């Protein structure tokens, strides 16, 4: 008896399909109805968790609401918060700090990542294993990364300080990567580069592999020098991929919070205070909810603009 049923299901497809199943009520649905049934839960969730809060944020950004004193009556302050933020020199300092962090970390990641990709693309023996090892840092939790680098950066006992001291004759206890005014801005760049170089490398590698061999052969026929081939074949062909990596890293680093928060917590003073740290301090330490909502909206607009460009590049790369 049991075998008969099995055979039925495996071979007699039309019979099986005609059997009324769990989906009877859905079975007669048009494609259009199914499309909406499938898409709407996602859209509803995103509206509830992202868009509704966003609208709420916009509303609050025009008030002087303080979340820790919910019982106090708050009032509309018009565009006061926005004017205040855009004329606040501390915000501009934070923006500069962020720009410094974004610019240098991306520059190093591109140079190292692209360089490594060129080398790995020569397909030496065992390249796949070593590539996997290089990729590991980018999969880790930025928070955990920021935290364990504080251990490596300990003066005296930290491994980083010891190794630098070993090779430079500087006393490992004489400098503090995290506490020093001159070094701290570079410390966050260093850790970010360590973590995200593999990201740029992996995307560049995909770009290099997308270049058909025939183009290189044509360049060889034309007797183009290695240097010339690099500038007029390799680089232009990898460019869309590189742009993809740069844009994504720029957006992510612009809003960087977790790694910096645990590595330097914006310190010393507010020297490594990126805008996300400023926002956290204003929203969850000073509880200036209205003011920080306005800052959040400004940040969101900036990111949204960049994301728009990112998706355009993304679609361009997709067609390759």
């Amino acid at each position: 008896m049991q075998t008969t049923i099995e055979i039925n299901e495996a071979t007699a497809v039309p019979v099986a399909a005609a059997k009324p199943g769990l989906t009877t009520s859905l079975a007669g649905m048009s494609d259009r109805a199914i499309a909406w049934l499938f898409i709407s839960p996602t859209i509803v969730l995103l509206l509830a968790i992202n868009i509704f809060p966003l609208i709420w944020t916009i509303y609050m950004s025009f008030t002087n609401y303080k979340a820790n004193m919910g019982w106090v009556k708050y009032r509309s302050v018009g565009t006061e918060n926005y004017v205040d933020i855009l004329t606040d020199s501390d915000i501009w300092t934070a923006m500069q700090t962020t720009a410094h962090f974004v610019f240098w970390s991306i520059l190093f990641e591109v140079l190292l990542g692209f360089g490594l990709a060129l080398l790995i693309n020569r397909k030496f023996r065992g390249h796949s294993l070593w590539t996997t090892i290089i990729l590991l840092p980018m999969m880790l939790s930025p928070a955990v990364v920021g935290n364990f680098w504080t251990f490596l950066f300990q003066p005296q006992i930290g491994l980083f300080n010891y190794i630098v001291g070993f090779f430079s004759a500087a006393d490992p206890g004489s400098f503090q990567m995290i506490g020093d005014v001159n070094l701290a801005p570079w410390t966050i760049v260093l850790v970010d580069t360590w973590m995200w170089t593999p990201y740029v490398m992996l995307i560049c590698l995909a770009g290099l592999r997308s270049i058909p061999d025939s183009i290189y052969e044509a360049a060889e026929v034309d007797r183009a020098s290695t240097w010339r081939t690099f500038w007029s074949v390799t680089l232009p062909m990898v460019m869309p991929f590189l742009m993809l990596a740069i844009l994504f890293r720029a957006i992510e680093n612009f809003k960087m919070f977790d790694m910096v928060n645990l590595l330097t917590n914006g310190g010393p003073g507010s020297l490594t205070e990126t805008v996300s740290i400023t926002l956290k301090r204003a929203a969850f330490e000073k509880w200036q909810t209205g003011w920080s909502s306005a800052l959040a909206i400004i940040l969101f607009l900036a990111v949204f603009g960049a994301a728009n460009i990112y998706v355009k590049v993304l679609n361009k790369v997709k067609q390759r």
Partner: protein
Amino acid sequence: MNGKATAHSVVEASARSKWISGAVVVFYALVTITPLLWIVLTSFKTPTDSIAYPPKVISEPSLEGYCNLFTIRSRQAPEYMASLPPATGYCDKIARERNMVIAGPSKTPGRLLNSLVIGFGSTFLAVFLGTLAAYAFSRFKVPLKDDLMFFILSTRFMPPIAVAIPIYLMYRQLGMTDTHFGMILLYTAVNVSLAVWLLKGFIDEIPREYEEAALVDGYTRLQAFVKTVLPQAATGIAATAVFCLIFAWNEYAFAVLLTSGVAQTMPPSIPFLIGEGGQDWPAVAAGTTLFVIPILVFTVLLRKHLLRGITFGAVRK
């Protein structure tokens, strides 16, 4: 490699240049992996060895960090220590050597459990919703498709702190602050955008002919989806799930701002393992090691799909 080695090829690098490239890449790989190895090594040191100068590479292996990670201890007077029966377990013995007794389990197991529950819960939901939406976007004419897809992806780019402000207020209003359900919902919302984009890429690659054949055979759309598309998308669904799981496992900003005890996950708690006289580095290292190992394993397993995952499915290889 393919027997044509005699001919000069422009595409294939020379043996010498391969050797040099290999050496440079291996050097970079060793440098880049050192911090991680150092943390793993530190997790097996005693607190004294962990802060020794010069840093010790070889030291007496100890599981004290792991003991400290999972227990809370209290210092006792020597008279009281002497009155105790002999130590029973390994951790107990170490605690006694430090004039302490184990007072009970720490919060770590609970936090690991929270990480697992929230991670798997949000992954399941995100992949479930994502598969449905991705199928619809892949196969049907949806009005404003490009705009909807952009909208879905754009939510991924919102700065977490900016989202956390209204979410905090909303959850407080609804009594969802510091609950598993609240965190699962939040992580689902963040992950669903990745899931839709990634899965759309995977489903786009499945030939439509299979479904059309099934439709001709008398299946309905839904049956065709369940019986032909889902099995073929299984690898893609699994890869997507791993990406979602890694995100939820690693997430810190929402966790630190929106949870405090009941639903707190691992990332916000690892930095705060304080021992006597400062941070308990072996315990921090032990926590980090345990936390990181699953990710390392998944990364190796995911190797083939990594590129897709980090480019929302746009770059396929």
